[in-house]
């Protein structure tokens, strides 16, 4: 009975995702495509929950609901777009020049290939020494243990990628337009101040809790950073976060805090081990929490600046 229930739930979820995926590229109006894409993102959080990956579900929910929705829905899609809705999307040549039917076949083949590879990977069990090492680690959450300790080098590079992405977005922003004004045409929506007043303490508390709980339970720095970035997006939408044309020094410090903390850790670990990025025998939990804190701050500030599309920001009304 339970097996049939699980199968039907997963089948419904899969079918819904396929339907949504199709309509997020093929729907006639841009608002429809955006809405279906956002719904797709929210259902993905359910997929992660069903697959037993609450850390991913947390990240998907925070980023999908907080940042992606604000970016896509705020981009002028509420009114009809002659450029995006009209004849331009009806041609058989896509933007990159390849005919659309060819692209469709290629993407389908790629999807099938990826599905086969993932199925094969999921069927082979992880090697026993790695699972034993993860289980024996001082951090109870295997995801955090892998991110910070076993694959710390990858996390360092990911932080660098995030920083480079921000710099690239900044270059692009300067080329396209100067610092945009964030006052919306009709004025800021009412009741937002009250929403902020009620949400700020809860969001801050939840983010810090998710950060602290990430050592032993699902959570971690990226999820907490995404939550804080959601708070920043709310502040920006309420007109309380003003973009600046330059990056203040304190903001620069916060942006490089994550990479810097990891780099310092990499060098410092040479004091107690021949290899860099090795956790010490004692004080590993405190170190992990400190690194996570630095990561969270950097991720949050980077995401908010990416949303604002401005080099800097300050809290305060216009």
């Amino acid at each position: 009975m339970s097996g049939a229930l699980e199968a039907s739930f997963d089948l419904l979820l899969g079918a819904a995702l396929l339907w949504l995926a199709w309509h997020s590229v093929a729907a006639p109006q841009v608002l429809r495509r955006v809405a279906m894409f956002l719904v797709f993102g929210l259902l993905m959080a359910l997929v992660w929950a069903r697959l037993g990956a609450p850390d991913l579900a947390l990240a998907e929910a925070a980023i999908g609901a907080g940042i992606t929705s604000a970016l896509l829905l705020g981009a002028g899609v509420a009114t009809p777009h002659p450029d995006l809705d009209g004849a331009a999307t009806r041609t058989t040549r896509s933007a990159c020049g390849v005919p659309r039917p060819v692209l469709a076949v290629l993407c389908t083949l790629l999807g099938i290939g990826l599905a086969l590879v993932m199925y094969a990977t999921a069927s082979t069990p992880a090697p026993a020494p790695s699972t034993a090492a993860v289980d024996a680690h001082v951090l109870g959450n295997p995801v955090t243990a892998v991110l910070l300790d076993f694959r710390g080098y990858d996390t360092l590079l990911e932080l660098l990628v995030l920083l480079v992405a921000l710099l690239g977005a900044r270059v692009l922003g300067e080329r396209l337009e100067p610092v945009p004004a964030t006052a919306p045409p009709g004025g800021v929506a009412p009741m937002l101040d009250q929403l902020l007043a009620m949400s700020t303490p809860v969001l801050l508390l939840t983010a810090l809790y998710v950060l602290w709980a990430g050592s032993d339970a699902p959570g971690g720095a990226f999820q907490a950073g995404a939550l804080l970035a959601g708070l920043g997006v709310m502040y920006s939408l309420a007109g309380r976060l003003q973009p600046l044309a330059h990056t203040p020094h304190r903001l620069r410090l916060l942006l490089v805090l994550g990479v810097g903390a990891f780099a310092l850790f990499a060098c410092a670990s040479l004091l107690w081990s021949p290899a860099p990025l090795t956790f010490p025998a004692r004080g590993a939990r405190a170190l992990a929490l400190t690194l996570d804190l630095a990561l969270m701050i950097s991720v949050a500030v980077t995401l908010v600046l990416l949303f604002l599309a401005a080099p800097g920001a300050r809290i305060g009304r216009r």
Partner: protein
Amino acid sequence: MSGLDLLAVALVCAGCAFFLTGTLGLLRFPDPRARLHALTKADNVGLGLICAGLGVLDASVAGALKLALVWVLGMLASTLSAFLIARQETVRSGGQRR
């Protein structure tokens, strides 16, 4: 099943019934502002009943408080969203923005 379990099942069933009613209203009402009534009110009561049922299941103060928080925040978000969308829809269809 114990009495508490039965209570939890009853509350969750009632919650699902409210969700179903909400979607029924969504399908049958003529325009977005009417649909917003069905969506936000019925779905939030449904969420509240489900939270109550799960709180009975959880039987711990911390869990019950967290569930209550989820419900209150859900209502907050729905209230604001419904108000903003209805206001914009009124303006778009030519009514007076209040």
